[in-house]
């Protein structure tokens, strides 16, 4: 009884506040609904979708002015996926799905192959390069490294890779295929165009890891493991062709078969190698083998 009385007591003093709030709620509902009807603007449906996928708390952590801004921004520049820290990986995945990033893939995934296999010790240097540690810069300063076609090892590609999938190992850019997403950033970054995006139809791909168009003699003088354009590989397998003193692999034709294996074994400089997640180590060049035997 006492409790009931006190509740009644409280209510009697509270109804006023309740009413005011009621009125307030009513007014705002009216205003916003009318505004919603009258002030509608058509926008790209994908923006709406992305917006809906976002946490919608407008915290600004993404660097944009709120979720709306980010939705628009990420649509224009998909590199910005993953900037929404409250949303985390889940939201990033949703955005990626909306933007349909993966859908464009037809056929095997593209993966980069570095067309050089010379480590620092395999190369000839005419002089010590003392400039800016960047491949683009070093490439502009002619000829410190004798081979004009080989990897410079200053890692412009490494810096371009957002996924930590490239590393310079003993002066050679080396892809970590377990991390690579095939984004092509590295192939755009290399000033010597050494990195080619290749349809990776198999776990490991065979490749001629050289780009030198010098004649065989010059190549040999400059690099222990360069392609001398001798054509032995092309004799073994259809997948290889030689032009401009350089053998090339037709990746579309590649299959792990005996012929290709034979080409690999015949190559005098060991420049035909496997690349991929479980690639076996490259063969030593014949000259080195001979030296080792002796």
């Amino acid at each position, binding site marked *: 009884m006492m409790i009931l009385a006190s509740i009644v007591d409280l209510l009697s003093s509270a109804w006023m506040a309740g009413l005011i709030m009621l009125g307030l709620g009513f007014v705002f509902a009216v205003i916003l609904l009318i505004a919603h009807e009258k002030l509608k603007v058509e926008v790209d449906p994908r923006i709406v979708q992305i917006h809906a996928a976002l946490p919608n708390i407008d915290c600004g952590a993404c660097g944009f002015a709120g979720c709306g801004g980010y939705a628009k921004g990420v649509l224009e520049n998909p590199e910005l996926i993953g900037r929404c820290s409250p949303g985390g990986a889940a939201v990033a995945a949703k955005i990626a799905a909306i933007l349909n990033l993966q859908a464009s893939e037809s056929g095997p995934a593209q993966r980069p192959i570095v067309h050089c296999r010379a480590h620092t010790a395999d190369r000839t*240097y*005419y*002089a010590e*390069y*003392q*400039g*800016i540690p*960047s491949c*683009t*810069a070093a*490439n*502009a*300063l*002619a*000829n*410190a490294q*004798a081979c*004009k076609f080989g990897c410079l090892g200053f890692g412009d590609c490494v*810096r371009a890779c957002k996924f930590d999938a490239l590393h310079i190992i003993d002066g050679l850019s080396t892809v970590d295929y377990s991390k690579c997403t095939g984004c092509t950033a590295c192939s*755009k970054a290399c*000033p010597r165009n050494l990195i080619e995006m290749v349809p990776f139809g198999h776990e490991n791909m065979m490749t001629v890891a050289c780009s030198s*168009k*010098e*004649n065989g003699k*010059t190549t040999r003088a400059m690099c222990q493991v360069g392609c001398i354009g001798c054509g032995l590989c092309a004799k073994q397998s259809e997948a290889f062709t030689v032009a401009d003193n350089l053998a090339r692999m037709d990746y579309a034709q590649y299959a792990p078969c005996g012929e290709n294996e034979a080409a690999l074994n015949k190559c005098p400089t060991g420049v035909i190698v496997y690349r991929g997640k479980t690639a076996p180590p490259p063969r030593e060049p014949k000259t080195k083998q001979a030296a080792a035997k002796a």
Partner: protein
Amino acid sequence: MTDDLKDGCTFSRGVHPPESKHLTEDRPIEPGPAVGELSILLSQHIGAPCQAAVMKGDLVEAGQRIGECQAFVCAPAHAPVAGKVKELALKPHPVLGRCQAITIEAQDPTPPSLPSFDLPADFDPARYKPDEICEAVRDAGLVGMGGAGFPTSVKIQPDAKPPKHTLLVNGCECEPYITCDYRIMLEWTDQVLAGIRLAQRACGASKVFIGIEDNKPKAIEAMSAAIARAGSTGDIRVVPLQTKYPQGGERQLINAVLGRTVPTGGIPPMIGVVVINVATAAAIADAVLYNRPLTHRVVTVTGEAIARPGNYYVPIGTPVEALIEFCGGVTEKSAKVVMGGPMMGLAIADLTTPITKTGGAVTVLTRHQIGQAKFERRQTACIRCGRCLEVCPENLNPTRIAHAVKSNLLDVAESHFIGACIECGCCSYVCPANIELTGYIKTGKIFLARQRKKMPA
């Protein structure tokens, strides 16, 4: 004309590195070495490379055209000596790294002889048609010998738009060490003047100024005397300029002499001015009067590391190695071989690199000259001292541009007008933190060019 010599004509900012010209300035032009094998690079100029017109094993005459042009902005190549084409292969190139070249085995290697030159007493450029001059220059394979290597025939082309009112002759030679232009002005004075008058006739300029830095009083005197001797020409004047680097940069030179500014991203013809180098002028006379193609040039071989520095007349295609050997080899522990001068020259690694039409000097620097700190690339962070801004002749903000490139912010670099940099090197020269500002800017330009190519608008 010596009486109205005035000092102090110059541009704003810039630096004054030690001149170091004493090594070679008093050495007359001498014939260079006898070379057995010459490599004529097919790309020695701005524009499309020329195409080889000979095959391996062909015999060629001295002066025979061996590289043909397919494009408008291009220059043919000629064989400096008689001999056999040994091979067509990639050869080291000071800028491009490696480049197609025609290698000629000389029939009988003899030292080149200095060109004979007697100006006919009645020489009058008015007798030549502008088109003829231009055509002769084009056939001779002439490209700017001041460094940039722009085909001269395109520059002095008659009836170009807009019309050219002024011809500026660049006798500044503001780079330290180099003296080839100086010697040419002293020794081949009349030839230079004849070339100037021919160029003037071709491009139709009404006024001619010869800009010479005031640390070369003898050249100023010689040129002035030659003009006086020729008598006829009131419209050619020698303008003494304050000695300051990069006085010879064409944008600076135009500013110093004419007080005009070439718009950013523009070139002198846009404001009706043609700039040619004095060696180019001499070569124009050679080409027009004697039909001699550009096969030899004067090269200053210098630097504290060279035993016998001097100015030599050498066939184009001579390997640097041979030149250095000819000059007595190196004395001290050398540190760097530079094609060109120490401010703008290209350090080369492969000493078989041949001399090109644009390469007026080979400078072999010692560690001492380079400075130990610079040699070992001892850099600190930029302390924002602003010295690089103070000296930049193009009024840029080198540190900002360079650091933007370093941090891969190419849009920032562009917003600070990276494209306006003339790569003169003043900023790097003064930087107390020893930062390779010019190097970063060059690299940034390459990045940008590549970006544009990859992403067509």
